[in-house]
Structures are given as C-alpha cells and as structure tokens.
C-alpha cells in the first residue's frame, strides 16, 4: 500500500527528484535518521564535562548502561564490538519511531534496510569469531564428532543463514504490519481517531523490536566468541 503523502518526497520534489524519492522512501528516510543521530551525537559530545549536566546525563545512562549489559553477555572481549551494537540499536530505534510521525515513513519497514542491518550484524559476528579463534573458528561449524562432519556442516550453514533471515523478517514484519494497521484504521475510522490506540502501542513495539534486534546481534557475537561446543 502506498503512502498517501510523504514529507521528504515533496522536499526532494523541489530538486526535481520526486519520482526517484517516491520509489525509494526507505533511502531518504534512512538519511534523515542518520542526520538525526549525527546531530544528537554532536550535541552530546560537544560539551562533555566530568560532572554531567542535563543532556549528557541522559546519554551517559543510555550508553554506559547498555555497555555494561553487553559486556555481561559477551564477556570483556565483546567491548570492542559495542560501538557497532549501540549504533544498530539507536538507528533501529530512531527508524522505528519515525514511523509514528504522520507523513513519515519508517525506514525499518522496508526489507532492504532490515536485510542490510542483519547482514552487517551477522557478518560482523563471524569477523569477531575469526579474529578470536583464527582458523579454528571453523570448529564452530563441524560439530563434536569428526565422522559426522558431512552431516553437521550443511546443518550449521542452514542455521546460520536462518539467523540472517530471522533478524530480517522479525523487524520488517513488525514495522510493516504496524504501518499497515495504522493506514487501514486511518482509512476506515480516521474521523473517530481509530488508529490512536495502535499508535500508542507502536511506541512500545518500536522500543521492543529495537531492543530485540540489538540483543540478538549481541548474542550472536557472544556465540562467536565462546569456545566451540
């Protein structure tokens, strides 16, 4: 279902790019999410002081609280992966919440964005595994008994492919479903504010889905770091 009106598409229309922007709303709104995150990062880092003040407090609680959480899952080795993980969390959160603003499109409601994020997260977990175990990382895929290698190798490969797809479709399905429900309710009973309860729940869904994506990527990295079973 097409959006009736998208704000950024008409902004791009001023530069004669309307047709392109109308076909790629996830790209333009992803840029907007990136700009928002960069501006917030700049604001937070602009005046860092030892005794935190108003805005710095918020960011410190968020960043350091989640850092301890990640380290408690992965162990001390996972601290190096934390910048990627928190970036994924904040980006998905901003992207999800963007879907709640009228005339905005959630970039995470497009399978292109979520697939890219899932590939980055799972790919990085394998990079961490190779980095940590060297060539022995292949033991993760071979199972416990050498005789069973021809059986275990395809099974493990399928299981690892399923990780990418499950990350992709969970986020995409939740955000896309939410958008569709809001649009349909808006058309059926927009005059009676029918989509309001669903939008209120959308805030919760956005937060939970961002956290689940972050948590599962953390656990994949933790699984790559730990010793082969």
């Amino acid at each position: 279902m097409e959006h009736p009106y998208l704000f950024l598409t008409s902004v791009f229309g001023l530069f004669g790019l309307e047709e392109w922007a109308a076909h790629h709303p996830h790209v333009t709104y992803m840029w907007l999410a990136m700009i928002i995150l960069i501006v917030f990062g700049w604001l937070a880092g602009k005046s860092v002081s030892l005794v935190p003040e108003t805005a710095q407090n918020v960011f410190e609680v968020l960043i350091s609280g989640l850092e301890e959480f990640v380290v408690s899952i992965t162990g001390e080795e996972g601290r190096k992966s934390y910048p990627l993980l928190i970036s994924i969390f904040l980006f998905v959160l901003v992207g999800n919440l963007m879907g709640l603003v009228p005339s905005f499109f959630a970039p995470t409601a497009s399978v292109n964005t979520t697939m890219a994020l899932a590939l980055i997260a799972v790919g990085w977990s394998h990079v961490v595994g190779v980095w940590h175990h060297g060539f022995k990382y292949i033991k993760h895929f071979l199972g416990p008994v050498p005789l069973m290698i021809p059986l275990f190798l395809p099974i493990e490969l399928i299981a690892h492919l399923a990780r990418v797809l499950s990350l992709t479709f969970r986020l995409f399905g939740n955000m896309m479903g939410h958008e569709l429900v809001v649009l349909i309710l808006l058309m059926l009973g927009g005059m009676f504010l029918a989509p309001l309860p669903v939008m209120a729940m959308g805030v919760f869904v956005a937060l939970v889905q961002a956290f689940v994506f972050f948590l599962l990527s953390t656990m994949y990295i933790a699984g790559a770091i730990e010793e082969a079973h």
Partner: protein
Amino acid sequence: MKKETGNNLRELGYFASLGISVALSIFIGLGLGLWLDKKFDTDPVLMFVGLGLGIVAGFSNIIRAGKKGKNY
C-alpha cells in the same frame, strides 16, 4: 541495569527467537534443495535431502535450547 534483569532479558530474547528460526531453517533447506535440483537437473532427489537437512537443523536448534534450559 541489574544483573538478574539482564540475564532474564537475554534468555527471553533467545527463547523467543527459537520458533521463527525453526520455521526459517526448514524453508532455507527446502529452498537450497530446490535450487540445487534446478542446477544439476536431478529433480526431486536433492529437494528431499535439503528438506531433511533443514528439518534436522531446525530441531537441532530446539535440542540446543533444551540443553541450555536445563540449567534452571
């Protein structure tokens, strides 16, 4: 965040993602089998092999989760 809350959240995320990974494993196995069938022109053989591998992969996820769950 308290340590116990973090652990509970971790387990919640892990076990909640179990169902979808079983379903997707089966479909990935089936898809790989069908694709290889088309490539090597060995109609239904590899499809069944892939389907079987997918089912085994899905259930190995459950078994692994069960082993993990024994700690409680």
